[in-house]
Protein backbone atom coordinates (compact mmCIF):
# COMPACT_ATOMS: atom_id res chain seq x y z
CA UNK A 1 0.00 0.00 0.00
CA UNK A 2 1.37 3.46 -0.76
CA UNK A 3 0.37 6.95 0.25
CA UNK A 4 -0.01 9.75 -2.23
CA UNK A 5 -0.87 13.40 -1.80
CA UNK A 6 -2.01 16.19 -4.07
CA UNK A 7 -1.42 19.88 -3.44
CA UNK A 8 -3.56 22.51 -5.12
CA UNK A 9 -1.98 25.92 -5.63
CA UNK A 10 -3.21 29.19 -7.02
CA UNK A 11 -3.09 32.88 -6.29
CA UNK A 12 -6.09 34.94 -5.26
CA UNK A 13 -8.99 34.67 -7.65
CA UNK A 14 -7.55 31.76 -9.59
CA UNK A 15 -10.73 29.72 -9.30
CA UNK A 16 -9.78 27.04 -6.81
CA UNK A 17 -12.87 27.54 -4.66
CA UNK A 18 -15.17 27.59 -7.65
CA UNK A 19 -13.74 24.30 -8.87
CA UNK A 20 -14.08 22.70 -5.44
CA UNK A 21 -17.67 23.83 -5.15
CA UNK A 22 -18.60 22.85 -8.67
CA UNK A 23 -16.83 19.49 -8.39
CA UNK A 24 -18.64 18.72 -5.16
CA UNK A 25 -21.97 19.79 -6.60
CA UNK A 26 -21.27 17.74 -9.71
CA UNK A 27 -20.61 14.68 -7.60
CA UNK A 28 -23.94 15.14 -5.91
CA UNK A 29 -25.76 15.51 -9.19
CA UNK A 30 -23.99 12.68 -10.97
CA UNK A 31 -22.27 15.04 -13.40
CA UNK A 32 -18.84 13.62 -12.67
CA UNK A 33 -18.21 10.37 -14.51
CA UNK A 34 -14.72 9.26 -13.51
CA UNK A 35 -15.31 9.37 -9.76
CA UNK A 36 -18.42 8.91 -7.64
CA UNK A 37 -19.20 9.11 -3.97
CA UNK A 38 -18.30 6.02 -2.04
CA UNK A 39 -21.62 5.52 -0.30
CA UNK A 40 -20.12 2.86 1.95
CA UNK A 41 -18.05 5.57 3.63
CA UNK A 42 -20.58 8.42 3.60
CA UNK A 43 -19.63 10.81 6.44
CA UNK A 44 -21.88 11.43 9.37
CA UNK A 45 -21.25 15.17 9.24
CA UNK A 46 -21.75 16.67 5.78
CA UNK A 47 -21.72 20.31 6.89
CA UNK A 48 -18.42 21.05 5.23
CA UNK A 49 -19.44 19.39 1.99
CA UNK A 50 -22.69 21.29 1.87
CA UNK A 51 -20.93 24.54 2.59
CA UNK A 52 -18.54 24.35 -0.33
CA UNK A 53 -21.27 23.43 -2.80
CA UNK A 54 -23.77 25.94 -1.43
CA UNK A 55 -22.44 28.77 -3.56
CA UNK A 56 -22.85 27.08 -6.89
CA UNK A 57 -26.13 25.54 -5.73
CA UNK A 58 -27.44 29.07 -5.47
CA UNK A 59 -25.76 30.17 -8.66
CA UNK A 60 -23.07 32.21 -6.99
CA UNK A 61 -19.31 32.40 -7.20
CA UNK A 62 -17.58 31.70 -3.90
CA UNK A 63 -16.44 34.87 -2.20
CA UNK A 64 -12.87 35.74 -1.40
CA UNK A 65 -11.69 33.25 1.18
CA UNK A 66 -10.49 35.04 4.26
CA UNK A 67 -8.00 33.20 6.41
CA UNK A 68 -10.47 32.70 9.21
CA UNK A 69 -12.87 30.92 6.87
CA UNK A 70 -10.56 27.99 6.24
CA UNK A 71 -12.17 24.65 6.69
CA UNK A 72 -11.52 21.10 5.68
CA UNK A 73 -13.94 18.89 3.87
CA UNK A 74 -13.55 15.23 3.15
CA UNK A 75 -15.10 13.57 0.13
CA UNK A 76 -15.21 9.75 0.14
CA UNK A 77 -14.75 8.81 -3.49
CA UNK A 78 -14.52 5.81 -5.72
CA UNK A 79 -12.99 5.49 -9.17
CA UNK A 80 -15.51 4.52 -11.79
CA UNK A 81 -14.48 2.73 -14.94
CA UNK A 82 -11.11 2.22 -16.51
CA UNK A 83 -8.18 0.27 -15.17
CA UNK A 84 -8.56 1.72 -11.70
CA UNK A 85 -12.22 0.95 -11.38
CA UNK A 86 -13.50 0.59 -7.81
CA UNK A 87 -10.37 2.03 -6.23
CA UNK A 88 -11.42 4.20 -3.34
CA UNK A 89 -9.89 7.30 -1.89
CA UNK A 90 -10.79 10.23 0.33
CA UNK A 91 -10.32 13.69 -1.10
CA UNK A 92 -9.50 16.10 1.71
CA UNK A 93 -9.81 19.72 0.68
CA UNK A 94 -9.27 22.93 2.52
CA UNK A 95 -9.79 26.35 1.04
CA UNK A 96 -7.32 29.17 1.68
CA UNK A 97 -6.40 32.71 0.97
CA UNK A 98 -4.57 32.77 -2.34
CA UNK A 99 -2.75 35.92 -1.30
CA UNK A 100 -0.48 33.65 0.67
CA UNK A 101 1.49 32.73 -2.42
CA UNK A 102 2.01 36.35 -3.34
CA UNK A 103 3.00 37.16 0.25
CA UNK A 104 5.44 34.27 0.24
CA UNK A 105 7.09 35.64 -2.90
CA UNK A 106 7.33 39.18 -1.59
CA UNK A 107 8.13 38.72 2.08
CA UNK A 108 10.16 35.49 2.14
CA UNK A 109 11.28 35.89 5.70
CA UNK A 110 8.23 34.07 7.01
CA UNK A 111 5.61 31.69 5.85
CA UNK A 112 7.66 28.75 4.59
CA UNK A 113 6.83 26.58 7.54
CA UNK A 114 6.48 22.87 8.19
CA UNK A 115 3.10 22.77 6.51
CA UNK A 116 4.55 24.11 3.28
CA UNK A 117 7.50 21.76 3.54
CA UNK A 118 5.11 18.87 3.92
CA UNK A 119 3.00 20.14 1.08
CA UNK A 120 6.05 20.40 -1.10
CA UNK A 121 6.54 16.67 -0.79
CA UNK A 122 3.15 15.87 -2.36
CA UNK A 123 3.15 13.46 -5.26
CA UNK A 124 1.23 15.77 -7.56
CA UNK A 125 0.34 19.41 -7.91
CA UNK A 126 -2.46 21.32 -9.56
CA UNK A 127 -1.71 24.97 -10.32
CA UNK A 128 -4.76 27.10 -10.93
CA UNK A 129 -4.33 30.11 -13.21
CA UNK A 130 -7.23 32.31 -14.17
CA UNK A 131 -6.57 33.96 -17.50
CA UNK A 132 -8.14 37.31 -16.68
CA UNK A 133 -7.14 37.54 -13.04
CA UNK A 134 -3.45 36.94 -13.34
CA UNK A 135 -0.95 39.68 -12.82
CA UNK A 136 0.95 39.78 -16.07
CA UNK A 137 4.70 39.88 -16.21
CA UNK A 138 5.01 43.22 -17.87
CA UNK A 139 6.99 43.28 -21.02
CA UNK A 140 8.62 46.21 -22.65
CA UNK A 141 7.12 47.51 -25.86
CA UNK A 142 7.97 45.60 -29.01
CA UNK A 143 9.19 47.16 -32.24
CA UNK A 144 6.45 47.61 -34.82
CA UNK A 145 7.28 44.61 -36.97
CA UNK A 146 5.52 41.39 -37.80
CA UNK A 147 6.15 38.63 -35.38
CA UNK A 148 4.48 36.30 -32.95
CA UNK A 149 1.49 37.63 -31.05
CA UNK A 150 2.37 39.79 -28.12
CA UNK A 151 1.52 38.52 -24.67
CA UNK A 152 -0.66 40.33 -22.16
CA UNK A 153 -3.57 42.57 -22.87
CA UNK A 154 -2.69 43.52 -26.39
CA UNK A 155 -4.23 40.18 -27.26
CA UNK A 156 -7.38 40.99 -29.26
CA UNK A 157 -8.77 37.56 -28.51
CA UNK A 158 -9.24 38.32 -24.86
CA UNK A 159 -12.61 39.08 -23.36
CA UNK A 160 -13.67 42.61 -24.14
CA UNK A 161 -15.88 43.05 -21.13
CA UNK A 162 -13.70 44.50 -18.41
CA UNK A 163 -16.69 44.97 -16.17
CA UNK A 164 -17.90 41.43 -16.55
CA UNK A 165 -16.35 40.24 -13.33
CA UNK A 166 -15.80 41.87 -10.02
CA UNK A 167 -12.30 41.10 -8.84
CA UNK A 168 -11.90 39.93 -5.31
CA UNK A 169 -10.12 42.38 -3.07
CA UNK A 170 -6.43 42.96 -3.70
CA UNK A 171 -6.47 41.39 -7.14
CA UNK A 172 -5.57 43.53 -10.07
CA UNK A 173 -6.94 43.14 -13.51
CA UNK A 174 -4.30 42.72 -16.16
CA UNK A 175 -3.31 46.19 -17.15
CA UNK A 176 -2.79 46.96 -20.80
CA UNK A 177 0.81 46.70 -21.77
CA UNK A 178 1.08 50.29 -22.86
CA UNK A 179 0.10 51.64 -19.47
CA UNK A 180 2.87 52.85 -17.24
CA UNK A 181 2.52 52.25 -13.55
CA UNK A 182 1.76 55.37 -11.58
CA UNK A 183 3.10 55.88 -8.07
CA UNK A 184 -0.32 55.23 -6.59
CA UNK A 185 -0.84 52.00 -8.53
CA UNK A 186 -0.66 48.84 -6.46
CA UNK A 187 2.21 46.49 -7.16
CA UNK A 188 1.38 42.84 -7.63
CA UNK A 189 3.64 39.91 -8.12
CA UNK A 190 3.47 38.57 -11.65
CA UNK A 191 1.63 35.29 -11.38
CA UNK A 192 4.17 33.44 -13.51
CA UNK A 193 7.06 34.47 -11.30
CA UNK A 194 5.27 33.56 -8.10
CA UNK A 195 4.41 30.11 -9.42
CA UNK A 196 7.91 29.49 -10.80
CA UNK A 197 9.47 30.50 -7.50
CA UNK A 198 7.06 28.30 -5.58
CA UNK A 199 7.87 25.35 -7.81
CA UNK A 200 11.60 26.01 -7.36
CA UNK A 201 11.14 25.92 -3.58
CA UNK A 202 9.09 22.76 -3.82
CA UNK A 203 11.81 21.10 -5.90
CA UNK A 204 14.43 22.30 -3.45
CA UNK A 205 12.47 20.72 -0.63
CA UNK A 206 12.55 17.46 -2.58
CA UNK A 207 16.31 17.76 -3.06
CA UNK A 208 15.95 18.19 -6.79
CA UNK A 209 18.60 20.29 -8.47
CA UNK A 210 17.60 22.41 -11.47
CA UNK A 211 16.70 20.18 -14.47
CA UNK A 212 17.09 17.11 -12.31
CA UNK A 213 14.11 14.83 -12.81
CA UNK A 214 12.25 12.94 -10.12
CA UNK A 215 12.78 9.16 -10.03
CA UNK A 216 10.95 7.45 -12.93
CA UNK A 217 8.95 5.29 -10.52
CA UNK A 218 7.75 8.37 -8.65
CA UNK A 219 6.71 10.92 -11.26
CA UNK A 220 6.15 14.43 -10.00
CA UNK A 221 3.04 15.56 -11.87
CA UNK A 222 2.18 19.22 -12.26
CA UNK A 223 -1.18 20.03 -13.78
CA UNK A 224 -1.86 23.59 -14.92
CA UNK A 225 -5.55 24.41 -14.78
CA UNK A 226 -6.51 27.49 -16.77
CA UNK A 227 -9.81 28.59 -15.32
CA UNK A 228 -12.80 30.68 -16.38
CA UNK A 229 -12.17 29.50 -19.92
CA UNK A 230 -15.71 30.37 -20.93
CA UNK A 231 -14.75 34.05 -20.94
CA UNK A 232 -11.90 33.71 -23.39
CA UNK A 233 -12.70 34.37 -27.02
CA UNK A 234 -13.06 31.76 -29.67
CA UNK A 235 -9.59 31.29 -31.12
CA UNK A 236 -7.99 30.61 -27.73
CA UNK A 237 -10.95 28.64 -26.49
CA UNK A 238 -10.52 26.03 -29.22
CA UNK A 239 -6.74 26.16 -29.24
CA UNK A 240 -4.66 23.65 -27.28
CA UNK A 241 -4.41 24.99 -23.72
CA UNK A 242 -0.64 24.61 -23.74
CA UNK A 243 -0.46 27.13 -26.57
CA UNK A 244 -2.05 29.69 -24.29
CA UNK A 245 0.43 28.91 -21.55
CA UNK A 246 3.33 29.30 -23.96
CA UNK A 247 2.04 32.64 -25.15
CA UNK A 248 0.98 34.21 -21.86
CA UNK A 249 3.13 32.50 -19.25
CA UNK A 250 6.25 31.73 -21.22
CA UNK A 251 8.58 31.66 -18.24
CA UNK A 252 6.36 29.14 -16.44
CA UNK A 253 6.07 27.02 -19.57
CA UNK A 254 9.85 27.03 -20.11
CA UNK A 255 10.51 26.26 -16.47
CA UNK A 256 8.20 23.25 -16.65
CA UNK A 257 9.74 22.07 -19.91
CA UNK A 258 13.26 22.26 -18.46
CA UNK A 259 12.55 20.69 -15.11
CA UNK A 260 9.85 18.07 -15.65
CA UNK A 261 9.32 15.20 -18.01
CA UNK A 262 6.80 15.70 -20.77
CA UNK A 263 4.34 13.24 -19.25
CA UNK A 264 4.59 14.95 -15.87
CA UNK A 265 3.04 18.18 -17.11
CA UNK A 266 -0.45 18.65 -18.46
CA UNK A 267 -2.36 21.84 -19.18
CA UNK A 268 -6.13 21.87 -18.76
CA UNK A 269 -8.54 24.61 -19.72
CA UNK A 270 -11.65 24.58 -17.60
CA UNK A 271 -14.90 26.34 -17.00
CA UNK A 272 -16.21 25.09 -13.68
CA UNK A 273 -19.68 26.61 -14.12
CA UNK A 274 -19.78 27.21 -17.85
CA UNK A 275 -20.27 30.95 -17.79
CA UNK A 276 -20.62 34.11 -15.74
CA UNK A 277 -22.86 33.59 -12.74
CA UNK A 278 -22.92 37.35 -12.21
CA UNK A 279 -24.88 37.63 -15.44
CA UNK A 280 -28.48 37.10 -14.37
CA UNK A 281 -29.53 35.56 -17.65
CA UNK A 282 -26.79 33.00 -17.52
CA UNK A 283 -27.31 32.39 -13.82
CA UNK A 284 -30.96 31.54 -14.38
CA UNK A 285 -29.98 29.19 -17.16
CA UNK A 286 -27.38 27.55 -14.93
CA UNK A 287 -29.80 27.01 -12.10
CA UNK A 288 -32.41 25.51 -14.38
CA UNK A 289 -30.04 23.23 -16.27
CA UNK A 290 -30.32 19.50 -15.73
CA UNK A 291 -27.19 18.68 -17.72
CA UNK A 292 -23.70 19.76 -16.63
CA UNK A 293 -22.66 23.23 -17.73
CA UNK A 294 -19.01 22.74 -16.84
CA UNK A 295 -16.30 21.55 -19.19
CA UNK A 296 -12.63 20.72 -19.28
CA UNK A 297 -10.35 20.66 -22.33
CA UNK A 298 -6.91 19.20 -22.74
CA UNK A 299 -4.67 17.76 -25.44
CA UNK A 300 -4.82 13.99 -25.43
CA UNK A 301 -1.92 11.67 -26.06
CA UNK A 302 -3.03 11.39 -29.67
CA UNK A 303 -2.47 15.13 -30.09
CA UNK A 304 -6.11 16.14 -30.41
CA UNK A 305 -7.88 18.46 -28.05
CA UNK A 306 -10.42 16.57 -25.96
CA UNK A 307 -13.35 18.08 -24.11
CA UNK A 308 -15.49 16.65 -21.36
CA UNK A 309 -17.94 17.94 -18.81
CA UNK A 310 -16.25 15.93 -16.06
CA UNK A 311 -14.55 18.29 -13.59
CA UNK A 312 -12.64 15.44 -11.98
CA UNK A 313 -10.31 15.12 -15.00
CA UNK A 314 -7.46 17.23 -13.54
CA UNK A 315 -7.75 15.32 -10.30
CA UNK A 316 -7.68 11.92 -12.02
CA UNK A 317 -4.71 12.92 -14.13
CA UNK A 318 -2.84 14.15 -11.07
CA UNK A 319 -3.47 10.79 -9.39
CA UNK A 320 -2.92 8.41 -12.27
CA UNK A 321 -1.38 10.30 -15.13
CA UNK A 322 -2.64 9.72 -18.65
CA UNK A 323 -4.09 6.38 -17.55
CA UNK A 324 -6.53 8.28 -15.39
CA UNK A 325 -7.93 10.36 -18.22
CA UNK A 326 -8.08 7.92 -21.10
CA UNK A 327 -9.75 9.76 -23.97
CA UNK A 328 -13.47 9.57 -24.29
Amino acid sequence: MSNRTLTVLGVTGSGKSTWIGALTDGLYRGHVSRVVFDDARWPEDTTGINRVRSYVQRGLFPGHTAEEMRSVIELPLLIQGGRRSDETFTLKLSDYDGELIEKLFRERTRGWDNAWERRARADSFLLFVRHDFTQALRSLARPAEPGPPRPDDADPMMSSSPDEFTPPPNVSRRAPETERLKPEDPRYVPTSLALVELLQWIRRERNLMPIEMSPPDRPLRVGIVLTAWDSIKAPWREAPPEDYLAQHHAILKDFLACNFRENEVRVFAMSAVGGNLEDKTYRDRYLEAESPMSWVRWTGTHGRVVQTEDLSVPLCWALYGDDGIADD
Partner: protein
Amino acid sequence: MLRLPLRAEKTPVDLEVELDPPPADDTAAPWSGAHVRYGNFEELALRAMPKLVAVLGLQDTGKTSLLASLFLELANGQYGDLPYRFASSRTLLAFDQLALRANEGDVGHTPVESGSQFLHLGMRPLSERGLEPRHVDVLFSDIAGELTEQWSQNAAGEAAEALAFVRQSNAVLVLADVERLAPAGGREHDGKVADILRRVGTVLRDAPHRPDVLLVFTKIDRVPQLLEEGPCSTVPFNETAWKMPLRAGSIRAAMLALKRQGVEVGAFSLSSRPVARGVVGLFRHVLARVDRCTSLARPTWSIEPETSSLMTYTAARKEWE
Protein backbone atom coordinates in the same frame (compact mmCIF):
# COMPACT_ATOMS: atom_id res chain seq x y z
CA MET B 1 -3.06 10.75 3.05
CA LEU B 2 -3.75 8.86 -0.15
CA ARG B 3 -3.00 5.17 0.04
CA LEU B 4 -3.29 3.47 -3.28
CA PRO B 5 -4.25 -0.18 -2.79
CA LEU B 6 -2.57 -3.05 -4.53
CA ARG B 7 -4.66 -4.36 -7.39
CA ALA B 8 -5.97 -7.27 -5.38
CA GLU B 9 -7.03 -5.03 -2.53
CA LYS B 10 -9.79 -2.53 -2.21
CA THR B 11 -9.01 -0.48 0.80
CA PRO B 12 -9.78 3.12 1.50
CA VAL B 13 -7.32 5.60 0.15
CA ASP B 14 -7.03 9.13 1.40
CA LEU B 15 -6.06 11.86 -1.00
CA GLU B 16 -5.22 14.92 0.95
CA VAL B 17 -5.41 18.23 -0.85
CA GLU B 18 -4.14 21.12 1.16
CA LEU B 19 -4.27 24.66 -0.05
CA ASP B 20 -2.97 26.73 2.81
CA PRO B 21 -1.01 26.23 5.98
CA PRO B 22 -2.28 27.29 9.36
CA PRO B 23 -0.89 30.59 10.67
CA ALA B 24 2.77 30.44 9.90
CA ASP B 25 5.74 30.37 12.13
CA ASP B 26 8.49 32.80 11.28
CA THR B 27 10.20 30.58 8.79
CA ALA B 28 12.21 31.96 5.94
CA ALA B 29 11.83 30.81 2.37
CA PRO B 30 14.64 28.61 1.00
CA TRP B 31 16.35 31.63 -0.52
CA SER B 32 15.86 35.36 -0.56
CA GLY B 33 15.49 35.84 -4.29
CA ALA B 34 17.58 38.98 -4.00
CA HIS B 35 20.91 39.56 -5.72
CA VAL B 36 23.57 36.96 -5.05
CA ARG B 37 26.66 38.26 -3.31
CA TYR B 38 30.14 37.59 -4.57
CA GLY B 39 31.51 34.66 -2.62
CA ASN B 40 28.10 33.11 -1.96
CA PHE B 41 28.07 30.90 -5.00
CA GLU B 42 28.56 27.61 -3.18
CA GLU B 43 25.32 25.93 -4.09
CA LEU B 44 25.55 27.08 -7.68
CA ALA B 45 29.11 25.78 -7.87
CA LEU B 46 28.08 22.25 -6.92
CA ARG B 47 27.06 21.32 -10.42
CA ALA B 48 29.64 23.25 -12.39
CA MET B 49 31.31 26.58 -12.04
CA PRO B 50 28.81 29.32 -12.80
CA LYS B 51 29.67 31.56 -15.70
CA LEU B 52 30.46 35.10 -14.62
CA VAL B 53 29.53 37.94 -16.91
CA ALA B 54 30.89 41.29 -15.80
CA VAL B 55 28.57 44.11 -16.85
CA LEU B 56 30.56 47.31 -16.43
CA GLY B 57 29.83 50.90 -17.18
CA LEU B 58 29.63 54.40 -15.82
CA GLN B 59 26.58 55.58 -13.97
CA ASP B 60 23.46 55.71 -16.09
CA THR B 61 24.87 53.91 -19.10
CA GLY B 62 22.07 51.36 -18.95
CA LYS B 63 23.57 48.37 -17.14
CA THR B 64 20.53 47.64 -15.02
CA SER B 65 18.16 48.42 -17.86
CA LEU B 66 20.00 45.91 -20.00
CA LEU B 67 19.60 43.20 -17.40
CA ALA B 68 15.96 44.03 -16.82
CA SER B 69 15.30 44.03 -20.53
CA LEU B 70 17.06 40.71 -21.00
CA PHE B 71 15.00 39.10 -18.27
CA LEU B 72 11.73 40.43 -19.63
CA GLU B 73 12.55 39.22 -23.12
CA LEU B 74 13.28 35.74 -21.86
CA ALA B 75 10.39 35.63 -19.43
CA ASN B 76 7.97 36.64 -22.16
CA GLY B 77 9.23 34.02 -24.54
CA GLN B 78 10.93 36.47 -26.90
CA TYR B 79 13.90 34.21 -27.52
CA GLY B 80 14.41 34.88 -31.20
CA ASP B 81 17.11 32.42 -32.25
CA LEU B 82 18.59 32.04 -28.78
CA PRO B 83 19.31 28.32 -28.33
CA TYR B 84 18.71 28.30 -24.58
CA ARG B 85 15.62 28.21 -22.38
CA PHE B 86 14.97 29.52 -18.89
CA ALA B 87 15.40 26.73 -16.35
CA SER B 88 15.99 28.41 -13.00
CA SER B 89 16.88 31.57 -11.15
CA ARG B 90 17.90 32.27 -7.58
CA THR B 91 17.19 35.96 -8.01
CA LEU B 92 13.62 36.09 -9.24
CA LEU B 93 12.66 38.67 -6.66
CA ALA B 94 15.48 40.95 -7.79
CA PHE B 95 14.49 40.50 -11.43
CA ASP B 96 10.88 41.22 -10.57
CA GLN B 97 11.86 44.46 -8.90
CA LEU B 98 14.03 45.47 -11.83
CA ALA B 99 11.25 44.70 -14.28
CA LEU B 100 8.80 46.69 -12.21
CA ARG B 101 11.07 49.71 -12.12
CA ALA B 102 11.83 49.40 -15.83
CA ASN B 103 8.14 49.62 -16.56
CA GLU B 104 7.83 52.61 -14.31
CA GLY B 105 10.23 54.26 -16.69
CA ASP B 106 13.14 54.49 -14.29
CA VAL B 107 15.22 51.56 -13.11
CA GLY B 108 16.97 53.84 -10.68
CA HIS B 109 20.63 53.74 -9.76
CA THR B 110 22.39 50.77 -8.25
CA PRO B 111 23.65 52.04 -4.91
CA VAL B 112 27.36 51.99 -4.18
CA GLU B 113 26.67 50.26 -0.86
CA SER B 114 25.40 47.18 -2.68
CA GLY B 115 28.98 46.32 -3.62
CA SER B 116 29.47 43.15 -5.65
CA GLN B 117 26.10 41.70 -6.44
CA PHE B 118 24.88 39.43 -9.19
CA LEU B 119 21.73 38.36 -10.91
CA HIS B 120 21.35 34.68 -11.68
CA LEU B 121 19.89 32.86 -14.64
CA GLY B 122 19.95 29.12 -15.10
CA MET B 123 19.65 28.19 -18.76
CA ARG B 124 19.22 24.89 -20.52
CA PRO B 125 20.73 24.54 -24.00
CA LEU B 126 18.40 23.76 -26.87
CA SER B 127 19.52 21.86 -29.93
CA GLU B 128 17.83 20.15 -32.84
CA ARG B 129 17.53 17.10 -30.59
CA GLY B 130 15.63 19.13 -28.03
CA LEU B 131 16.61 20.35 -24.59
CA GLU B 132 20.04 19.14 -23.66
CA PRO B 133 20.67 17.53 -20.27
CA ARG B 134 22.84 20.43 -19.13
CA HIS B 135 22.24 23.41 -16.92
CA VAL B 136 24.32 26.55 -17.32
CA ASP B 137 24.39 28.97 -14.40
CA VAL B 138 25.09 32.51 -15.52
CA LEU B 139 25.76 35.32 -13.09
CA PHE B 140 25.53 38.91 -14.29
CA SER B 141 27.14 41.60 -12.19
CA ASP B 142 24.97 44.52 -11.20
CA ILE B 143 27.54 47.00 -9.91
CA ALA B 144 27.18 50.71 -9.23
CA GLY B 145 28.65 52.83 -11.97
CA GLU B 146 30.50 54.96 -9.44
CA LEU B 147 32.43 51.93 -8.24
CA THR B 148 33.38 51.00 -11.77
CA GLU B 149 34.59 54.52 -12.46
CA GLN B 150 36.64 54.57 -9.27
CA TRP B 151 38.17 51.23 -10.14
CA SER B 152 39.02 52.35 -13.65
CA GLN B 153 40.98 55.25 -12.22
CA ASN B 154 42.58 53.43 -9.30
CA ALA B 155 42.82 49.65 -9.37
CA ALA B 156 44.07 49.55 -5.77
CA GLY B 157 41.49 51.94 -4.36
CA GLU B 158 38.33 51.36 -2.38
CA ALA B 159 36.52 49.84 -5.33
CA ALA B 160 39.13 47.16 -5.86
CA GLU B 161 37.37 44.61 -3.69
CA ALA B 162 34.02 45.17 -5.36
CA LEU B 163 35.51 44.64 -8.82
CA ALA B 164 37.84 41.79 -7.91
CA PHE B 165 35.53 39.36 -9.70
CA VAL B 166 36.41 40.85 -13.11
CA ARG B 167 39.57 38.80 -13.21
CA GLN B 168 37.48 35.64 -12.84
CA SER B 169 34.87 36.59 -15.40
CA ASN B 170 34.03 34.52 -18.44
CA ALA B 171 32.94 37.58 -20.40
CA VAL B 172 33.21 41.30 -19.83
CA LEU B 173 30.66 43.77 -21.19
CA VAL B 174 31.64 47.43 -21.14
CA LEU B 175 28.74 49.77 -21.82
CA ALA B 176 28.94 53.13 -23.55
CA ASP B 177 26.00 55.52 -23.80
CA VAL B 178 25.66 56.71 -27.39
CA GLU B 179 23.51 59.61 -26.29
CA ARG B 180 26.45 60.95 -24.31
CA LEU B 181 28.93 60.25 -27.09
CA ALA B 182 26.93 61.94 -29.78
CA PRO B 183 27.05 65.62 -28.75
CA ALA B 184 30.06 67.87 -28.88
CA GLY B 185 30.93 67.14 -25.28
CA GLY B 186 31.13 63.44 -25.96
CA ARG B 187 34.90 63.22 -25.48
CA GLU B 188 34.56 63.05 -21.72
CA HIS B 189 32.36 59.99 -21.91
CA ASP B 190 34.61 58.57 -24.59
CA GLY B 191 37.63 58.96 -22.33
CA LYS B 192 35.98 57.46 -19.29
CA VAL B 193 34.73 54.40 -21.14
CA ALA B 194 38.20 53.95 -22.58
CA ASP B 195 39.57 54.06 -19.03
CA ILE B 196 37.34 51.14 -18.12
CA LEU B 197 38.46 49.19 -21.15
CA ARG B 198 42.12 49.78 -20.40
CA ARG B 199 41.62 48.83 -16.74
CA VAL B 200 40.00 45.60 -17.90
CA GLY B 201 43.01 45.05 -20.10
CA THR B 202 45.46 45.41 -17.23
CA VAL B 203 43.43 43.10 -15.02
CA LEU B 204 43.29 40.44 -17.70
CA ARG B 205 46.95 40.72 -18.53
CA ASP B 206 47.97 38.12 -15.99
CA ALA B 207 44.59 36.44 -15.63
CA PRO B 208 44.54 32.66 -15.99
CA HIS B 209 42.28 32.91 -18.99
CA ARG B 210 41.16 35.58 -21.43
CA PRO B 211 37.45 36.27 -21.45
CA ASP B 212 35.87 38.04 -24.38
CA VAL B 213 35.49 41.79 -23.95
CA LEU B 214 32.45 43.23 -25.64
CA LEU B 215 31.81 46.91 -26.08
CA VAL B 216 28.08 47.57 -25.89
CA PHE B 217 26.70 50.85 -27.20
CA THR B 218 23.42 51.45 -25.42
CA LYS B 219 20.43 53.72 -26.03
CA ILE B 220 20.67 53.71 -29.82
CA ASP B 221 17.02 54.72 -29.85
CA ARG B 222 18.11 58.19 -28.67
CA VAL B 223 20.23 58.84 -31.77
CA PRO B 224 18.02 58.93 -34.88
CA GLN B 225 20.68 57.73 -37.28
CA LEU B 226 21.55 54.77 -35.11
CA LEU B 227 17.91 54.00 -34.52
CA GLU B 228 17.39 53.90 -38.23
CA GLU B 229 20.27 51.50 -38.73
CA GLY B 230 19.08 49.29 -35.91
CA PRO B 231 21.18 47.14 -33.62
CA CYS B 232 24.40 45.88 -35.09
CA SER B 233 27.45 43.96 -34.07
CA THR B 234 31.06 43.75 -35.09
CA VAL B 235 32.54 40.50 -33.90
CA PRO B 236 35.44 40.15 -33.90
CA PHE B 237 36.07 43.86 -33.59
CA ASN B 238 37.30 45.28 -36.86
CA GLU B 239 38.35 48.87 -37.08
CA THR B 240 37.54 49.14 -40.72
CA ALA B 241 34.09 47.78 -40.06
CA TRP B 242 33.56 50.34 -37.33
CA LYS B 243 30.33 52.07 -38.19
CA MET B 244 29.59 54.14 -35.15
CA PRO B 245 29.53 57.79 -36.23
CA LEU B 246 30.44 58.92 -32.78
CA ARG B 247 33.22 60.65 -31.00
CA ALA B 248 34.68 57.38 -29.80
CA GLY B 249 38.33 57.72 -30.69
CA SER B 250 39.60 56.79 -27.24
CA ILE B 251 37.28 53.84 -27.10
CA ARG B 252 38.47 52.66 -30.47
CA ALA B 253 42.10 52.93 -29.43
CA ALA B 254 41.44 51.03 -26.21
CA MET B 255 39.70 48.27 -28.12
CA LEU B 256 42.66 47.94 -30.47
CA ALA B 257 44.99 47.78 -27.48
CA LEU B 258 42.97 44.90 -26.08
CA LYS B 259 43.11 43.20 -29.42
CA ARG B 260 46.89 43.50 -29.54
CA GLN B 261 46.95 42.01 -26.07
CA GLY B 262 45.30 38.91 -27.47
CA VAL B 263 41.86 39.55 -26.05
CA GLU B 264 38.88 38.65 -28.20
CA VAL B 265 36.94 41.88 -28.59
CA GLY B 266 33.68 42.75 -30.26
CA ALA B 267 31.16 45.57 -30.39
CA PHE B 268 27.39 45.60 -30.19
CA SER B 269 24.78 48.31 -30.28
CA LEU B 270 21.31 48.04 -28.82
CA SER B 271 18.54 49.68 -26.89
CA SER B 272 16.95 48.22 -23.78
CA ARG B 273 13.83 50.28 -23.33
CA PRO B 274 11.17 51.29 -23.99
CA VAL B 275 11.73 48.99 -26.94
CA ALA B 276 14.18 46.12 -26.64
CA ARG B 277 16.36 45.96 -29.73
CA GLY B 278 19.38 43.77 -30.02
CA VAL B 279 19.31 42.63 -26.40
CA VAL B 280 18.74 38.94 -27.10
CA GLY B 281 21.27 39.05 -29.91
CA LEU B 282 23.94 40.23 -27.50
CA PHE B 283 22.96 37.57 -25.00
CA ARG B 284 23.07 34.89 -27.66
CA HIS B 285 26.66 35.78 -28.44
CA VAL B 286 27.62 35.98 -24.76
CA LEU B 287 26.10 32.62 -23.90
CA ALA B 288 27.69 30.94 -26.88
CA ARG B 289 31.09 32.18 -25.75
CA VAL B 290 30.84 31.55 -22.01
CA ASP B 291 29.20 28.16 -22.40
CA ARG B 292 32.27 26.89 -24.20
CA CYS B 293 34.61 27.95 -21.41
CA THR B 294 35.71 24.79 -19.67
CA SER B 295 39.11 25.59 -18.26
CA LEU B 296 38.96 28.04 -15.43
CA ALA B 297 41.22 28.81 -12.57
CA ARG B 298 39.83 27.96 -9.20
CA PRO B 299 37.73 30.88 -8.03
CA THR B 300 38.94 33.11 -5.27
CA TRP B 301 35.86 32.59 -3.10
CA SER B 302 36.39 29.83 -0.61
CA ILE B 303 35.01 26.48 -1.63
CA GLU B 304 36.39 23.52 0.21
CA PRO B 305 37.62 20.68 -2.02
CA GLU B 306 35.02 18.43 -0.46
CA THR B 307 32.24 20.58 -1.85
CA SER B 308 33.21 19.94 -5.43
CA SER B 309 30.68 18.49 -7.79
CA LEU B 310 31.54 15.02 -6.53
CA MET B 311 29.64 15.64 -3.34
CA THR B 312 25.94 15.00 -3.45
CA TYR B 313 23.64 17.94 -3.18
CA THR B 314 22.00 16.60 -0.06
CA ALA B 315 25.23 16.04 1.77
CA ALA B 316 26.53 19.45 0.85
CA ARG B 317 23.36 21.07 2.01
CA LYS B 318 23.68 19.42 5.38
CA GLU B 319 27.20 20.74 5.64
CA TRP B 320 25.97 24.29 5.34
CA GLU B 321 22.93 24.05 7.56
